[in-house]
């Protein structure tokens, strides 16, 4: 029997996840370990960076290098890491609050730079760790939070449209309830050279039990993926937010700072000489 060098279970750390039973994030963790095993990436060549929130606990559960960072700053940390260590495969994980609200500005500029990072946003349309407040992707009429009893009343953040407009070169949507597709999208996202934005619908059954219905609501994208940003914009605008699959992938210039100094100390001193 031929055995692959590392199995997906080899990428699971001994740390027990503290997510709620039934949480979608378990399937995302499983998909990440399967994608890493499929790609045969050595554990020491992978770094997983996160912000704050339930989903941001992911690095603790993956047997690779990890950094559980500051709220909303996962992309900033990851960009710094990638700038210093181009050889590493850098994955970034977080939730809708961490990535679209607190870290919203970092998202824009990470897309614009198009560094070779894979950003996995586990979107459950709620702040779960802080016990159920409306997030940027919560529907305006969601009235179940005691903090917004009349609903947030604000239009939802549109993750795919924003990522496209800001310059991301890979955009896809997965669902924790379809782990086969999710693993495939993850592999594609990691292989893509540039900023890969993977929006994952990942239900929070404790604070959003209504999200159980997502399994019936999701469907494949009606159109084939495109490498044309204009066409991608049309697809995204026509979408109901529940379409799954790769939307857009284009080879765009990747920003990667030089790893070696191009000037000597004397050159710098000369610039500051009065």
């Amino acid at each position: 029997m031929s055995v692959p060098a590392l199995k997906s279970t080899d990428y699971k750390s001994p740390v027990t996840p503290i997510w709620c039973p039934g949480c979608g994030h378990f399937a995302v963790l499983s998909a990440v370990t399967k994608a890493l095993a499929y790609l045969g990436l050595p554990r020491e060549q992978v770094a997983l960076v996160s912000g704050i929130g339930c989903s941001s606990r992911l690095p603790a559960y993956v047997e690779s290098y990890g950094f559980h960072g500051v709220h909303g700053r996962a992309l900033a940390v990851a960009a710094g890491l990638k700038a210093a260590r181009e050889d590493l495969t850098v994955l970034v994980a977080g939730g809708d609050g961490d990535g679209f609200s607190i870290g919203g500005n970092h998202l824009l500029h990470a897309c614009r730079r198009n560094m070779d990072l894979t950003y996995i946003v586990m979107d459950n349309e709620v702040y779960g760790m802080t016990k159920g407040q409306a997030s940027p992707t919560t529907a305006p009429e969601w009235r179940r939070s005691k903090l917004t009893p009349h609903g947030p009343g604000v239009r939802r953040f549109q993750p795919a449209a924003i990522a496209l407009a800001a310059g991301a070169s890979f955009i896809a949507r997965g669902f924790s309830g379809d782990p086969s597709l999710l693993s495939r999208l993850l592999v594609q996202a990691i292989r893509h050279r540039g900023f890969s934005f993977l929006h994952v619908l990942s239900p929070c059954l404790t604070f959003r039990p209504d999200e159980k219905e997502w399994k019936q609501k999701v469907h494949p994208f009606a159109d084939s993926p495109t490498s044309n940003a204009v066409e991608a914009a049309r697809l995204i605008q026509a979408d109901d937010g529940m379409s799954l699959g790769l939307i857009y992938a284009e080879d765009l210039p990747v920003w990667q700072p030089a790893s070696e100094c191009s000037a000597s100390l004397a050159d710098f001193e000369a610039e500051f000489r009065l």
Partner: protein
Amino acid sequence: MSDFEEELIASLPEFLAHALELEVESRERYRDMAACMELHHNPEAAELFNEMARYSELHVREVLLRAEGVELPAMAPWGFKWTCGESPEVRQAEAAHYLMSRRQALELALCHETRARDFYLGVAMRSESAEVRALAQEMAGEEQVHVDLLTRWIAGADHGVPQEDLDPPNVVA
């Protein structure tokens, strides 16, 4: 989400790769659920899921034994020919809840074991390889033992007293 079109499992190595994936996935998910339940102070459900994980582990070992000397195909995570888009024995994981009673946990486990049995039965009925059909029938029989056991346990389990949530979600019921 629509079900996938069924593709037939053609060879013994391919079938063993599917069986191994199914049982490993089952073991891992049951372990996850057991650990979750322990963390959420639900020892009854944790005990049951740990027990189910042990059954799955026994099946993993059995499949590995049968696979000795067989070259298993390297399969992409999305390359398995499940009829429902994911490993059949973990499909209803979202039905778990930290307040679930032992009876509800048994019903969830029964759902998973039934799906596993049905997967093996489907292969036993439709594969074009007699060798695959025979082994699939045998494995369906083993899953049937679990189905019968769980059915008996459910029959003897009361609905229990609903657990009090000492730290309920801050949402309107």
